[in-house]
């Protein structure tokens, strides 16, 4: 660390020659290079940052879809069928499937590939399993970077699949443009638990195994929940909805069309009244960009569909793809995509900066004899936690101040 010339942020990390060749190969379509880049991202091999940095300008072409749901809901099977359907219409597909790893050994059995029966032998479906290697908060960074690699490679659609078990996984799917939450029938309690956290992030809800008993009830429950979330914003939300439907009329199977169907009359009226000024509201709505609350953003303007699928037979998969397309179209036409992307990159920057500063601090703690020693000294009343924190962070802050001063001098 000492004496490193802290680069201004215009400078990208430097690529080694080997890595530059690897990036070149990836961009020219080498599967091997793509696979290798994802490995480097996963392992955090030195130099991976420069690689991701170099890939960034080539990204932005893919529709990124996140799929989450409880274990056994049929995610992998559905992803397989989705990939096949995308392939049928000529799109190339990348899949990142995240599986948990053992907290004890770090080992994992990554089983999602078994379900990819419809796409074996088709290299234009690039399927990659990733384990959640105990990366504290870093999992979403790793998966987001892997998605970038697939995007830069030129995949039309990238699907990010994860078990919706905790905050980590929620963070992962939130890096997608469109999020589908998968629910299986008869999971009334499931739907209850979905309320916290997962429900807010769904742009589309899918009741899979819709041929099973209780599917209709689960659909109804979800519909009701979606409406309640809509209802929570009263007239304002409905107004936005009206605006969205104006903006996207003409787009076949437009999201707003679906949404209107779900609405009861009362809401709808409110929306129509408010149309004019809400529409302009939306256009200049940069205020949304600063807010972290995705729920606030999306439910103002997009009513999630509740769809039924039978992943085993492929039933409903076409309609699901239509819903994804509709959401993608909505994001573009409403300008919401800019808000989403800005929020996502903001989160990425924050995560990276925190991780790096955290690493600096950790190194400093080591230099002061390690956290256990410090804790012991606090326990012995030799010092106190605030003093320790000051001793560790103080010099870092001083360095930053010095750099700043130097920079200012140079600028003058």
């Amino acid at each position, binding site marked *: 660390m000492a004496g490193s010339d802290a680069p201004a942020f215009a400078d990208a990390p430097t690529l080694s020659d080997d890595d530059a060749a690897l990036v070149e190969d990836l961009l020219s379509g080498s599967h091997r290079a793509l696979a290798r880049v994802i490995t480097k991202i996963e392992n955090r091999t030195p130099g991976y940052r420069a690689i991701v940095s170099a890939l960034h300008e080539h990204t932005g072409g893919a529709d990124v879809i996140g799929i989450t749901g409880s274990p056994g809901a049929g995610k992998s099977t559905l992803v397989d069928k989705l990939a096949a359907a995308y392939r049928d219409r000529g799109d190339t597909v990348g899949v990142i499937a995240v599986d948990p790893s053992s907290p004890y050994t770090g*080992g994992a059995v*990554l089983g999602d590939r*078994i379900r990819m029966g419809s796409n*074996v032998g088709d290299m234009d479906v690039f399927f990659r399993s990733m*384990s959640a290697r*105990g990366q504290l908060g870093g999992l979403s960074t790793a998966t987001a970077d892997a998605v970038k690699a697939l995007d830069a490679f030129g995949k039309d659609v990238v699907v990010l699949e994860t078990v919706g078990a905790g905050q980590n996984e929620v963070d992962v799917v939130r890096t997608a443009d469109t999020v589908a939450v998968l629910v299986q029938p008869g999971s009334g309690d499931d739907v209850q638990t979905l309320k916290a956290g997962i429900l807010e992030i769904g742009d589309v809800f899918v009741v899979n195994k819709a041929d099973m008993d209780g599917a209709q009830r689960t659909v109804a429950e979800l519909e009701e929940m979606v409406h309640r979330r809509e209802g929570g914003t009263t007239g304002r939300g409905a107004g936005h909805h009206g605006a969205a439907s104006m903006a996207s009329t003409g787009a076949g199977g437009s999201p707003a069309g679906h949404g209107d169907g779900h609405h009861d009359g009362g809401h709808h009226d409110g929306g129509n009244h408010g149309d004019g000024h809400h529409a302009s509201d939306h256009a200049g709505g940069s205020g949304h960009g600063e807010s972290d609350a995705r729920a606030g953003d999306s439910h103002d303007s997009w009513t999630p569909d509740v769809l039924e699928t039978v992943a085993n037979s492929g039933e409903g998969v076409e309609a699901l793809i239509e819903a994804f397309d509709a959401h993608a179209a909505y994001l573009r036409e409403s300008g919401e995509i800019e808000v989403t992307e800005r929020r996502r990159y903001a989160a990425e920057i924050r995560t990276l900066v925190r991780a790096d500063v955290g690493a600096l601090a950790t190194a400093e703690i080591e230099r002061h004899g390690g956290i256990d020693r410090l804790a012991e000294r606090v326990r012995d009343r030799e010092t106190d936690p605030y003093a320790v924190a000051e001793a560790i962070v103080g010099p870092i802050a001083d360095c930053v101040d010095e750099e700043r001063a130097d920079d200012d001098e140079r600028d003058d």
Partner: protein
Amino acid sequence: MSAEQQERAVRCLVAKVGLDGHDRGAHVIARAFRDAGFEVVYSGLHRAPEDIVQAAVQEDVDVLGISILSGAHNTLVPKVIEGLKEYDAFDDTLVLVGGIIPDEDEDELKELGVAEVFGPGTPMEETIEFIRNNVPERA
């Protein structure tokens, strides 16, 4: 610049090729590998050699363990190895074969590029140890 920790894990593909439907062994191996701290991708049953190649390349595994109990190893394994070479992935993949392989075939497979053949009754620790000692170093 970054003091970030590397997080290297050994990645293995446990593969069943061809028409043999016996995967108890493959399952046991997969679990033992997991418990050894490896990341294991299991291919599922009845895969064609090109499917295995696709999986090995995309998953960028360090180790490819092919389980064959059907006796068709002399046709299937060469195809897998050819495929790996086609994708430039052979050199840094440790290819292992498990199952019932006659001695004379074993030599032939090794000549082709199979690193080791593990017959019935091989202690799990031996296989894991072999992998730990022979996993290709990567830049």
